[in-house]
């Protein structure tokens, strides 16, 4: 129709409305649908009733990790991506490429190379890589970069910073611990004194102290061992063993490893972190589970809006953080049968209170002791 166009315009003053009216819908449609494929306009005009899937049908996500994907932090993220993928938002087929063992030092190079392959629409990593994202993101404006965790600095633009807090389920776990401890001594085995590490630990002890006072069990002592590594189960296990020796009988396993030590001792129980670890060991009573579904979905939305409507990426200059079980950032894992019914009830009540907004679990991120 390119040739008639000048004709139409010249015709306009002379001839009557007839041509212009026909022209009207196309001309009005034109600006809005420039980004979209021509098929869209046809769809709109022919069958406006039932919507054909529009725009992209595939979303390729690349995820880079400091360690291996067994590590809880990544495992739970991968779980979330799979859950989201199963729901196929916007009818998208979402695939996840996982790249392990990329050190902070290599982050920028790897992220840049990944972007250059042009295969990935979203590239996510731990917030260790935020520096790398900051360095790379402007060279690849079409790609959405994201990093998760409490760590680093926001980058804005197409660099999104997402996070979740799991102190609420940790609090609930603490209730179990406080109710079940014999020795009034409970512990945590953790990586580094970071906020995402300290938050749940504080909540865990608060939950425990809460019930302890309720049941008049008296003062609960708490200690945490930082093993100075994101993944060293052997040391984590020794740390737990030391705590057990020191009289602790409820151990919050912020890292992999303690359960095998706990299994050795009797009357000692553990709590999982990040992922639902009930299946990992018989001594696990429950887990504080991190859920990235919502956060990841935000990324998908942002990307989709950008690709389909050309809505510019505009990452907020602070974390997009899902802080509670209410907004879906976290949940309490399955509870072991070893937990007495009345305790389970107590937990259920507390959980309800949290979900109902009646109970606010305070988030403390300062190092313990």
């Amino acid at each position, binding site marked *: 129709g390119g040739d008639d166009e000048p004709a139409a315009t010249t015709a306009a003053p002379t001839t009557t409305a007839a041509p212009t009216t026909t022209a009207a819908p196309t001309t009005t449609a034109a600006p809005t649908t420039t980004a979209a494929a021509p098929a869209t306009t046809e769809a709109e005009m022919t069958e406006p009733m039932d919507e054909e899937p529009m725009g992209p049908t595939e979303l390729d996500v690349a995820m880079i990790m*400091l360690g291996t994907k067994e590590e809880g932090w990544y495992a739970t993220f991968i779980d979330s991506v799979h859950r989201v993928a199963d729901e196929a938002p916007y009818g998208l087929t979402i695939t996840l*490429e996982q790249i392990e063992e990329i*050190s902070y030092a290599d982050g*920028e190079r790897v992220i840049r*190379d990944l972007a250059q392959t042009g295969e990935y629409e979203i590239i996510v990593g731990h917030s*260790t890589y935020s*520096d790398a994202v900051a360095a790379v993101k402007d060279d690849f404006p079409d790609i959405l970069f994201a990093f998760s965790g409490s760590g680093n600095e926001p980058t804005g633009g197409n660099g999104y910073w997402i996070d979740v807090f799991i102190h609420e389920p940790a609090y609930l776990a603490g209730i179990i611990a406080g109710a079940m401890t014999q020795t009034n001594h409970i512990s945590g085995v953790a990586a580094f004194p970071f906020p995402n590490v300290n938050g749940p630990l504080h909540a865990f002890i608060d939950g425990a102290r809460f019930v302890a006072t309720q049941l008049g069990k008296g003062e609960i002592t708490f200690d945490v061992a930082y093993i100075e590594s994101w993944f060293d189960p052997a040391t984590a296990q020794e740390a737990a063993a030391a705590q057990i020796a020191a009289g602790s009988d409820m151990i919050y396993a912020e890292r992999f490893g303690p359960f095998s030590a706990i299994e050795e001792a009797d009357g000692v129980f553990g709590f999982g972190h990040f992922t639902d670890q009930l299946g990992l060991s018989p001594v696990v009573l429950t887990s504080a589970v991190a859920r990235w579904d919502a956060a990841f979905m935000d990324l998908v939305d942002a990307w989709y809006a950008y690709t389909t409507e050309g809505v510019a990426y505009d990452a907020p200059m602070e974390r997009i953080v899902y802080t509670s079980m209410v907004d879906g950032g976290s949940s309490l894992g399955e509870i072991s049968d070893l937990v007495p019914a009345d305790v389970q009830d107590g937990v259920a009540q507390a959980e309800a209170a949290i979900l109902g907004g009646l109970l606010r679990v305070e988030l403390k991120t300062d190092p313990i002791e």
Partner: protein
Amino acid sequence: MADQVTDRAPSDPQPPDGDRRRDPLSMLFQPGAWRIEKRLVVRPWHEFVTLVAALVAAVAIIAGLVLVIGKSPADSFAALYNGAFGTRESTLETLVQATPLILTGLAAAIAFRAGIWNIGGEGQFFAGVMGTWFVYDLWGGLPAPLLFVLMFISAAVAGAAWASVASGLLVRYGTNEILTTVMLNFVILYILSYLLAGPWQSPDTFYYQTQRMADTTYLPRFFSVSRLHWGFAIALLAALVVYWLIRRTTLGYEIRGIGSNVVASRYKGIRVGTVTLATMAISGALAGIAGFGELLGLHHRVQLDIAEGIGFTGIIIALVARLHPLGVIVAAILFGALVNGSTAMQYETGIPKALVFVIEGTTLALVLIAAIVSRYRIRKTG
């Protein structure tokens, strides 16, 4: 031969087996009258041929593994090459990888020249990083040129100091330096971790990391497209300086001297202790400068995993380069190419990261063997 074994007194059942025939590899070379013997002179093409053979073997093995996991070797090697030298960007990125390795390679080379087994390049690298940050932390406000000089000196001094702990113990108490340097690698990481958790921790992040440095302290880059920074030039310069030091100065003479024969050196009045201290100081300083380059050239903030095995890789590079300062440059660049190429391979063709290590390890092992094999020849005799 068999009868000779039976000839032996039954009282001594052990057959003599010091000979090459019982030596699996050599058996391959021992049909009849063929004989392995050492070359009096090893010509470049000897080395070249064996090197090529080694690379072919490496390629074969890697191709096998790639097939095992059901990927295409052709694509994989294409990706490997592209990742290493395929484009101008990747070539420059390879040089970026090589930059710290040249320096830690030199650090190892000069120490080994003196017969001192400095396995502490890793720790001395971090000492350099800490030295750089220390100055920035105190006098970050100074005019850039002055600040650079101070940071550079401080990095070198810090690396030297950390190395001197080991050499001091070695000279004073004869404490084995392999042990002390290995141990000190661990110690300094904990010290750094402590600093990053406390005094040095960036107020606005919770990681064990410092604040990001002001961009006035970024080392200038050569091409806008790449990350190749002045650290590379510094590394090349360092290689020339070390070469000159070893060959042209009396200190270099004495360094090689105690490396060649410490007893004779002492008899001829070389102060072995002093030279040992000097050598380790230089070695540590080089590793420290590597830290300076990585911090100001790439990362701009101190982190615990700012480097991964750079010190150890430096040792490999030094020995692959036969401790020759200029050879170190080549070896480092090739290693950088191997690292980048194989990571590219990883996401181009979706092979697991694990295979990257296998590729690096296999190639290294075969190249090392080739270097030795090239010193021998097989001759027909009798």
